[in-house]
């Protein structure tokens, strides 16, 4: 039992209370204290209310204190009013008090000098990109260093079955076919994982799946009245699929979305932000900031951001870049049709939605119904950047250039973080659209290194993804070892992600032994929800682009279809073929397991299913029942 030794060592070395929480490092405001304040205090002492003159959103404002003086005395917890109020239960006034563990964090932070380590400064871009392997090694060193600091042991590498199910679903959005899965399981080459990663990244399905993720974020109609037709969505999807498959630079693709004109495919990005026939500057500002900069600036649309240091002016200064974006139609004076920036800007819409009122040099007036700063004139200004005079520049081109500039660290960080979240189910900053200094990353150095690498590589998404997939961290099993059961932040073991609706559909088709056709046709069978992609998504389309990757979103109605639709009980092609290929029951059952779960059955699973089949009058129905049980298993519903 060579495996046992490290386990025993781990038990001996790890203190009994070891968890994912870090105890070794000096607590910092941003990493340790702010999450607590954010849950309990910022409602009253944040961006909207500053009761007692106290603003706890940043270390500086917290240390500055409130109307009655300082509330934190660095190095002296006992003299710090903030801690006293929390310890006495006087604060927060609400029903949910700060837990004992969190009080201790605050106490230790003050005792250690109330240190701050703000995140979000300049990015260091290496002169030359590393190879994917070098980058993977760097990532593993960072992850392992933090695990060692926290004395949390790492789980071993996942076996081939677990690994291949994960990597197929993460990269191309479906499970491998039985033949593909069996070939990998049988391959004895030591570098077969690397080869599989490369092969998956080279498949056209890579582009199609990655494009689908972005299509669902920025190019599907979000409300019944959006001026975004399914033709626009389809054109966008084809354009982006091609872009990803050609591995075009991410900065270039984003510039094309932000500046899209006429009826070009990326214009769906602008059209998603239309209302009542015209593009809306505020919606465009929201979309750009959330999707490409990783910040929810829209919380500052009507008031200063409650939890982050964003002001209303920041939001409208960004919206100013879209003040001229309009949908125009050819007539006596207008020569074009479609989405363009026009000197006139968008008209007041049919039902009375007003365009932003424009002032000199690209400045705009904050609309009169938009909260405390209404009717203020604000200049066109990049978020946390400079003011721009727009007199002789195309506003959208200026914005696109700034957003995707190597100097804009937010852009590279947001992209790197999203990619990380796609692989690990959780961003280094989570949620992925809250990259504010107030919500620091779990691994700041790592995120910055990934973002720097991303810039150095020429915004090469495949490069970054390849490196992430090559890491030991990504390839660990989900099964915990003693001492890392409670770790959710340090990547000591794989965390499960739910299989979202379209990958679930494609996986079911593949698991049935059917072929996915390129046009999205084909299905599992029957005449109901399993008949085609369209029918399936009508019932199973429960997740949205912003659903947390860990959330299983299906309910009773969906499970009923997987349990009882006629298509799941008639022997399907996978089962029929598995039986036809001959051999004993174990051989046939193994084929079914590999076809559905991409792994070989364990002994007890073989025994159970063998006995089950032996009791059936028709063995074929028995194999189909095993298939049915596996498709309805929790393992099939998640990416382990």
């Amino acid at each position, binding site marked *: 039992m060579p495996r046992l030794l490290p386990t025993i060592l781990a038990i001996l070395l790890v203190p009994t209370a070891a968890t994912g929480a870090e105890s070794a490092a000096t607590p910092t405001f941003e990493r340790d204290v702010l999450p607590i304040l954010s849950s*309990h205090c910022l409602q009253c002492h944040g961006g909207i209310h500053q009761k007692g003159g106290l603003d706890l959103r940043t270390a500086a404002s917290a240390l500055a204190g409130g109307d009655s003086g300082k509330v934190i005395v660095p190095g002296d917890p006992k003299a710090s009013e903030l801690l006293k109020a929390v310890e006495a239960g006087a604060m927060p006034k609400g029903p949910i008090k700060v837990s004992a563990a969190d009080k201790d964090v605050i106490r230790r932070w003050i005792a250690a000098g109330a240190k701050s380590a703000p995140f979000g400064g300049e990015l260091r871009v290496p002169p030359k990109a590393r190879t994917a392997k070098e980058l993977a090694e760097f990532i593993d060193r960072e992850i392992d260093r933090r695990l060692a600091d926290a004395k949390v042991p790492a789980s071993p590498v996942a076996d081939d079955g677990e690994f291949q199910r994960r990597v197929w679903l993460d990269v191309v959005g479906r499970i491998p076919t039985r033949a593909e899965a069996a070939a990998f399981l049988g391959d004895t080459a030591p570098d077969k994982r690397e080869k599989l990663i490369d092969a998956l990244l080279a498949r056209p399905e890579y582009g199609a799946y990655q494009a689908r993720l972005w299509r669902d974020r920025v190019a599907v109609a979000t409300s019944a009245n959006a001026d975004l037709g399914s033709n626009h969505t389809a054109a966008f999807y084809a354009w982006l699929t091609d872009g990803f498959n050609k591995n075009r630079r991410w900065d270039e693709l984003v510039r094309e979305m932000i500046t899209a004109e006429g009826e070009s495919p990326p214009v769906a990005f602008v059209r998603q932000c239309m209302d009542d026939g015209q593009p809306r500057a505020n919606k465009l500002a929201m979309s750009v900031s959330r999707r490409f900069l990783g910040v929810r600036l829209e919380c500052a649309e009507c008031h200063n951001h409650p939890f982050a240091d964003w002001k209303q002016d920041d939001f409208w200064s960004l919206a100013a870049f879209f003040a001229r974006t309009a949908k125009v139609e050819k007539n006596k004076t207008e020569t074009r049709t479609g989405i363009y920036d026009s000197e006139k800007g968008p008209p007041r819409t049919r039902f009375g939605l007003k365009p932003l009122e424009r002032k000199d040099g690209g400045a705009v007036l904050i609309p009169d119904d938009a909260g405390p700063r209404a009717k203020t004139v604000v200049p066109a200004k990049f978020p946390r950047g400079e003011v721009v005079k727009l007199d002789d520049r195309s506003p959208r081109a200026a914005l696109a250039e700034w957003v995707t500039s190597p100097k804009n660290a937010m852009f590279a960080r947001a992209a790197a973080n999203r990619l990380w979240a796609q692989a690990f189910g959780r961003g280094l900053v989570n949620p992925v659209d809250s990259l504010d200094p107030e919500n620091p990353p779990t691994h700041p150095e790592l995120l910055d290194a990934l973002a720097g690498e991303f810039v150095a590589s020429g915004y090469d998404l495949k490069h970054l993804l390849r490196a992430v997939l090559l890491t030991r961290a990504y390839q660990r099993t989900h099964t915990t070892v003693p001492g890392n059961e409670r770790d959710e932040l340090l990547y000591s073991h794989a*965390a*499960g992600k739910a299989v979202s609706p379209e990958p679930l559909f494609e996986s079911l088709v593949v698991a049935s032994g059917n072929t996915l056709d390129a046009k999205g046709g084909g299905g599992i069978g029957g005449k109901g929800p399993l008949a085609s992609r369209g029918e399936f998504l009508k019932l199973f389309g429960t997740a949205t682009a912003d659903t947390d990757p*860990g959330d299983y979103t299906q*309910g*009773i109605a969906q499970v009923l279809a997987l349990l009882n639709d006629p298509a799941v009980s008639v022997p399907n092609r996978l089962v029929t073929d598995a039986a036809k290929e001959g051999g004993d029951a174990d051989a046939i059952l193994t084929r079914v397991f590999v076809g559905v779960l991409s792994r070989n059955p364990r002994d007890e699973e073989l025994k159970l299913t063998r006995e089950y089949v032996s009791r059936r009058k028709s063995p074929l129905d028995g194999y189909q029942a095993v298939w049915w049980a596996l498709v309805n298993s*929790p393992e099939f519903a*998640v990416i382990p």
Partner: protein
Amino acid sequence: MFDRPLTRRETLRLAAAGVSAVSFSRWLGPLAAHAAETPKKKHKSCILLWMDGGPSQTDTFDPKPDAPAEFRGPYKAVQTAVPGLQIGEGYTKLAKWMDRACVIRGMKTDEAAEHWRGRIYMHTGYRPNFAGLTYPSLGSIVAAHRPQDTGLPNFVVAGKTMQNFPHISGAGFLGPRHDGLILRDLSKGLENAQPGTDTAEYAEKLDLADKLAQGFQRTAPWPAVKAQRTAYQGAVELVRSGKSQVFDLSREPEKVRERYGKHEFGQGCLLARRLVETGVPFVEVYLGDWDTHEQKRSESVRDTLLPVSDQAMTALLADLKDRGLLDDTLVVWMGEFGRTPKTHDKSGSRNHYDKAWSTVLFGGGAPGGAVVGKTDDKAAEVVDRPVSGPDFMATVLTLLGIDPTKDLHAGTRPVRTVAPGAKPVTEIVGKG
């Protein structure tokens, strides 16, 4: 091993203990035979008629016939069964039922900027994400307080428009087992609720599936896995009980279906009645889109939403009364907020407004023919008896026999059922 049917709780307890569904074949049959029986009602039920988008108070339950035209809007006021109580003419049929209604005219809340914030606020009684938690919606709170003994889910949501915001039918920190069952296409009933094979065969398949699931459940104790298992158990339970026929509206006489109106909301109300009759404690029926910023949608309110809801609610109240269920069934009419007192076009378009608006309670122990609170002559300010979102939530829960001041548990963290400071409206629930 067992010679009587297992209750759901026993099954779950066994499952939790690692014992998989014991000899399904022996209890699937007997239970299915009991399916037709209606259990005796022990608890009050609630039907939430959710008017999504935020209907205008002026155009519905708080008309201002004497206000200037731009405030009055396009609708006349009509007299109701209650002397002195007037409502908008769009609810002429419902006017005859106002002796069973309690109108709250002093709704004063503070989430009007965004629909999703308003929806969450009025469904949970908490501001979205307050203190970092996801709060359970009203239906889930009620579901969690009722025994799960009907063989049906405790919380059912009807209407395909729900698809875009499942967050308001979610159980939040109470866990997915109290999520609402969302029924997207009422015309199809609950599909696939019959086993695909004969019952003995089916029971053995389920047994196999349960055993195969166990290993992974142990190594992957993730929320997603628990949620999948919960949905799976719920589905199996429905198949087992054979009670899914309650979802099949074609079992109702055509005349009855027409009385409710053959549109989604009407049929949703009919389904709600059928479910409540069977003992389901909470049903939400969804009707949108009341978001009348502009003419197109204002006209749709006039031509569709008002007549449709007038007809369906009238039929629902009549059926509940005829079956002796109205006293034990609280019917709630509400949206996420009201609309601005002043219209901005002739069709009566109005924007979001939360400073003064109305909700209505029918039956369920709420006083009939009552009006609580009062707005000024333009329905712009509450001049008497303001009611906040949490107050309203506390009122509804109290009527349903659930103590709003009790703690629920988010993991180990105790959290008040309704935000502290919330007071049930004593004019409605009594002094307690």
